[in-house]
């Protein structure tokens, strides 16, 4: 009797729990699952954005257009007179055929994404949408460097504001200012500082100290674009990283340090044997946060580089609103989703984050 009543109670509770969860679940379906499903579906069509053109089902065409690539060897150009490979007179580099001669054109046009050398032979990687391949690469480079520097600087900042000093409270508040500025606003601000003439802060400073000639175009020369963007992101997001790490630091009991002190462990040793291991869980959370965030970076790229260089998300945006290819844009969205998902899993596995 007693047993059955308690199981009845459990059943009642389960029912109640289900009822209580239902609204949240419904909302989740409406705001997350439905749009996601819609994107998956659209990615298999050739739907045009803001147009009444008839939408057709095209299967995997969009994915093929985005992901197909081919590797071709570039034949050396043979000098007719000497019978040896021709050499560029100016640079002294060996000359190879241009990719346009070897990449396939039918039924689809492949454009060169990048070239590489291997055992003296030169190869070209051709893709149907090289801009997308490049945007993935840009995003990965951006993610790696920005997260690396943010973690490093964030850790330093957190250690500093965690120590006892006068005005610590004020320091902690001030530290958060860059994080509080809206990204689009801070991106515009940095855009002015990056001005390609001496009206820009960096060119002015560089010129004042005789480092550069004052006409560096940070945002339009290919070598400087990514470092510039990474700098902006590091400036903006380091405080966030510091905040998360600071929270982790405050969880470490002081007694441990006192005990270590008594045992004669150096500060250095304390850091590596106490601070770092105990900080690992919060560091892991912070890393996951930032990596996933950096992988879907959009605003800095859109404001500062617009169509000059893409991140995955900004390429997606321009495919949608400039080329109006909604089907293609959805396919990109799905690919971004899968990439981010893969990263999330990778992190959880490798850092041993407890998912329970």
């Amino acid at each position: 009797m007693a047993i059955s009543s308690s199981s009845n109670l459990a059943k009642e509770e389960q029912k109640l729990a289900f009822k209580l969860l239902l609204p949240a679940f419904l909302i989740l379906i409406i705001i997350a699952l439905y749009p996601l499903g819609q994107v998956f579906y659209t990615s298999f069509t050739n739907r045009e954005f803001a147009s009444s053109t008839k939408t057709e089902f095209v299967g995997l065409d969009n994915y093929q257009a985005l992901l197909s690539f081919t590797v071709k060897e570039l034949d050396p150009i043979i000098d007719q007179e000497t019978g040896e490979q021709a050499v560029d007179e100016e640079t002294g580099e060996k000359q190879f055929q241009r990719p346009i001669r070897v990449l396939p054109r039918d039924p689809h046009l492949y454009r060169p994404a990048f070239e590489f050398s291997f055992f003296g032979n030169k190869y070209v990687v051709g893709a149907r949408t090289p801009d997308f391949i490049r945007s993935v690469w840009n995003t990965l480079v951006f993610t790696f460097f920005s997260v690396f520097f943010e973690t490093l600087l964030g850790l330093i900042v957190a250690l500093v504001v965690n120590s006892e000093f006068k005005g610590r409270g004020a320091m902690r508040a001030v530290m958060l200012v860059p994080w509080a500025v809206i990204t689009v606003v801070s991106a515009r601000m940095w855009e002015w500082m990056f001005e390609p003439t001496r009206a820009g802060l960096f060119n002015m400073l560089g010129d004042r100290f005789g480092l550069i000639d004052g006409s560096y175009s940070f945002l339009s020369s290919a070598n400087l674009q990514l470092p510039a963007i990474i700098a902006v992101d590091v400036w903006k997001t380091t405080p966030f990283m510091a905040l998360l790490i600071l929270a982790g630091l405050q969880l470490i009991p002081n007694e441990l340090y006192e005990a270590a002190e008594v045992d004669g462990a150096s500060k250095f040793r304390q850091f590596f044997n106490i601070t770092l291991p105990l900080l690992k869980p919060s560091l892991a959370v912070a890393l996951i946060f930032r990596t996933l965030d950096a992988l879907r970076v959009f605003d800095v790229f859109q404001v500062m580089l617009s169509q000059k260089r893409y991140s995955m998300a900004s390429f997606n945006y321009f495919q949608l609103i400039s080329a109006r290819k909604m089907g293609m844009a959805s396919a990109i969205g799905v690919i971004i989703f899968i990439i981010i998902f893969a990263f999330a899993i990778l992190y959880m596995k490798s850092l041993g984050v407890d998912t329970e």
Partner: protein
Amino acid sequence: MRKNLLLVLALVFIIAFSGVVMAQEEDEITLTIAAGAVGQEKATAEEAAAMYMERNPGVNVEILDTPDLANDRYGLYLQFLEAESSKVDIYQIDVIWPGELAEHFLDLYDYGAKEVVDKHFQAIVQNNTVDGKLIALPWFTDAGLLYYRTDLLEKYDREVPKTWDELEETARYIMEEERAAGNEDFYGYVWQGNAYEGLTCDALEWIYSNGGGKIVSDDKKITINNDKAIEIIDQAAGWVGGISPAGVTGMGEEDARSMWEAGNALFMRNWPYAYALGNEEGKPTAGNFDVSPLPAGDSGSSAGTLGGWNLAVSKYSEHPEEAAKLAMFMAGEEVQKLRAVEATLNPTIKSLYEDEDVLEAAPFFGSLYDVFTNAVARPSTATAPKYNQVSEQFFQAVHSVLTGESDARSAIEYLELDLMDTTGFETGEPTQP
């Protein structure tokens, strides 16, 4: 049970109340115009809106600020149109968009535009007519112009350049002299080199004036892959980091204008709107500059790209009648004159080019009348509805040459293949001016 009752009561209240609010709003309607904010565009549009509101009590006109770069504006409009939003009643659309956006706009012939169209330039009216429907009223027209500093040309005893080579030579000479004289930030020539629609306009001017055709000809042939086009793009790439700042590959209209108005450039390629602004008191350029047609290349004749903006009424507007009436007012003689005088925005109404007040404010409207009527159009009609993609492929190709990522020949060869892919057209010989 009582709780439920309370809930129902609350709901009834909300619905009833919102009904009241809506009923109140019906007395005064609000019309929103999505308009440009480049230079004085917004200020003069607001002035015109105030005039309209004064004469039409019960109508509230709002001007929605839109992005400066045409591509960004296009993106914003598409979002409104995809959502079939009634938030915007009138859109200011670029001369290249009618073919692509026609399905979202009302036929203004149904709202009495028949009587006024004859006053406007016929070429633009034609451009805005899709399948016999007038989907937008011409608001102002544009053509690329060469701005030059009269004081500096006089100081160094140089002529206004007639060819690109002359421009390059003069710019280099005066730039070096000015720099030696102490202005280290001085450059010879500023223009629009960012990867966006503006670069399409600039590059089309170089290529067409050099005898390299119009990218895609009117009879739907892809003509871009020719020696003349490659030659002039190469020449322009040589300007970057020389007579033009290296950062020109990131400049739009407003960036070029701010550098010019600071007195740091000898020549500038820009639209007419920069004329009134450059003459504002206190600016180094005030009274020290004039405009001429852009230089010519090998073809021997100059080319200015046709620009300009039009007013279209959204199909999704809640007040189509009133919106059409407002659009007619905004594109009418009175407002066009106001904007011509205050902001040097070229009227599209022929008679205004003989108006004394207009000619006093902008003498070049009279002297360069031919430039405006003979401006070279971008291939938007031939490639509709794919123009935007064509233009993007074009400016990306040119941009890659300007930044040195690619050589002109490879970039143009690929562009040709890309355009064939996008449009399905054959290749052909370039049209000559």
